[in-house]
C-alpha cells in the first residue's frame, strides 16, 4: 500500500487532474478540437456535466466499500476531493441550465423549479450539497466533530435524488439510470449490512 506521502504527493494530484478531464474534453470540443458538441451544444454540455456530477457522487460513495473490499485505507484520503468534484460538476450542470438553456429567464426558471418535479428534485439535491461542500474543510470537521458525520450522511439521499432526477428526465430508455440506481443501491446496501452485522453477531453470541 502506498505511503501517505506518496498519496499526497503523487496519487492525489494525478487524480485531481484526471477528474478535470471531462471538463477539459468538453472545452476542447466546444472549440472543435478532437471532436465537437454536435447540433445541440447546450444540451450536450448540460447532459455531460450532470452525468459526471452524478458519477462523482457515486465514486465518492464507493470509496468506503472499496477501502474495505480491497484493504486500501489510503483511498479515504481521496474521498473529500472526489465529493467536491461531484459538487463542482453538479453546480456547473445547474449553471449551464440556468444561463445557457434558460437564458436566466427567472420567471421560467421559477416555474420549472417549482412545477417540474424532476427539476425540483435536481434542485433540492444541489441545495443539499451546498452545506456538505461548505463543511468539507478540516476546521469544520473539527468544529462539528460527531455531528459532521451525521450531516455528511446526507450524501446518500442526495445521490438517490440525483439518480431519480436522471431517471425522470429520460423519455423511454431507462437502462442507464437503472444501472446507476443498481450501483447506488449496492453501495448503500453494503453500508446497511455492515451497520447491522455487529448487532446480529451480538445477538447470536447472546443466544449462545
Amino acid at each position, binding site marked *: 500500500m502506498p505511503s501517505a506521502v506518496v498519496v499526497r504527493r503523487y496519487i492525489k494530484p494525478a487524480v485531481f487532474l484526471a477528474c478535470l478531464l471531462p471538463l477539459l474534453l468538453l472545452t476542447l470540443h*466546444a472549440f472543435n478540437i478532437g471532436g465537437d*458538441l*454536435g*447540433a*445541440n*451544444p*447546450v*444540451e450536450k*454540455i448540460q447532459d455531460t456535466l450532470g452525468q459526471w456530477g452524478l458519477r462523482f457522487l457515486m465514486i465518492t460513495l464507493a470509496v468506503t466499500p472499496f477501502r474495505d473490499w480491497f484493504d486500501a485505507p489510503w483511498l479515504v484520503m481521496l474521498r473529500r476531493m472526489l465529493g467536491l468534484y461531484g459538487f463542482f460538476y453538479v453546480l456547473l450542470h445547474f449553471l449551464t441550465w440556468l444561463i*445557457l*438553456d*434558460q*437564458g436566466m*429567464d427567472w420567471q*421560467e426558471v421559477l*416555474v*420549472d423549479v417549482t412545477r*417540474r*418535479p*424532476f427539476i425540483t428534485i435536481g434542485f433540492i439535491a444541489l441545495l443539499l450539497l451546498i452545506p456538505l461542500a461548505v463543511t468539507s474543510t478540516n476546521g469544520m470537521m473539527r468544529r462539528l466533530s460527531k455531528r459532521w458525520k451525521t450531516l455528511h450522511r446526507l450524501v446518500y439521499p442526495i445521490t438517490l435524488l440525483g439518480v431519480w432526477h436522471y431517471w*425522470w*428526465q429520460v*423519455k*423511454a*430508455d431507462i437502462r442507464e439510470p437503472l444501472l446507476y440506481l443498481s450501483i447506488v443501491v449496492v453501495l448503500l446496501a453494503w453500508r446497511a449490512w455492515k451497520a447491522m452485522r455487529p448487532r446480529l453477531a451480538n445477538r447470536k453470541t447472546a443466544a449462545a
Partner: protein
Amino acid sequence: MLIRRPRPGDSAAIQPSQITDEAVYLDRRRLLQAALAAGVTGLGASWPADATSGGAPLTFKPNPAYNVTDPPPNKYEDITTYNNFYEFGIDKSAPASNSERFKPAPWSVTISGEAERTGKFWLEDILKPHALEERVYRMRCVEAWSMVIPWVGVPLGDVLKQFKPTAKAKYVAFKTVMRPSEMPGQKIDVLEWPYVEGLRIDEAMNPLALLAVGLYGKTLPNQNGAPLRLVTPWKYGFKGIKSIVEIRFTERQPPTAWNISAPNEYGFYANVNPQVDHPRWSQARERRIGGGVFAARVPTLMFNGYEKEVASLYQGMDLARNY
C-alpha cells in the same frame, strides 16, 4: 401501373419481390429514369435509379406556398446527425451512425383496410402519378428543440386518394418496417415494435400533410426515414413516422407507438401547443438547433406556426384533454 391486391386463392397471390428480381427491378427504374430525363413521362414523379442509398438527386419543384425562411433551413449535417429514430438507437447521433446497413430499396407499401384499392404497391408506382415538390417546414420535437427542414415529397392526401378510401375510412394508420437485422434499435424493448402512427382522415387530407421521399433535393438518407416518411409539421416530430411499409384505412382510432409507451405523456393528436405542457417539461419555448451556445430559447407557436392551415380541424375540441 398499380399492382392489384391478390385475393386469397388467386393465382396472382405472389409477393412483388417474387416476381421481379432486384437487378431487373433496379434496371427498370434506370429505364424510367432515362425516360424521365428524356422528358417522356411528363408529369410523373422522378424517382432516381440509384435510390439504394440516401442522397440521390431528385427532380422536383419548390412550392412557394410552404417556404419557411425565418429562421433559415438547418444545415444538412445537423438534420442528418441529430434526430430521433429509435429503430437505430436511442442517442440522437445513433441514427446516423447505425443506419448504414439499412436497405431502402426495393421498397413496397401495403395499402389495406377501408379503401377500394388495396394491395402491395411498389414505391415508384405510388409516386408516379404525382409531381415531387419541395416544402420548407418547421419541425418541432416534443423534447422542445426545433429545426427548419427542406423536404421533398408529395401531399399525403393526393396519394391516399389514389386508393379511394371508403366512407368508413375515418383514420389512417401507418407502420414502420420491422427489420431488427438492419435496425439494431429494434432489438431493444424501449418501444413496442414496429413503430405505428395514425392520423384522423381529415388531418391526413389536409394539404399540409406531406409524404416525404427527400431532403435538400436528394433522396432521404436512411437515418431520416428512407425511403418514405410522414411529415406533419403542426404536430410534434414523433408523429412523423419513418420508413413506412403499411398504410391502413381504419374506422377506429389506431394505436400509436408513443401513446402505447406512455399514454399520459403522449396523446394521439400530439399537436404542437405552447399552452399544454408535457407532464414533465414546459412546451412554451423551444431551442432552435443551429443557434449556437448562447442563443436563447424562442417562444413556441400554436400548431408550430401553422394555425391558419390546421386550426379548423380542431374547432370545439379541448386541446388540453386531446393532447
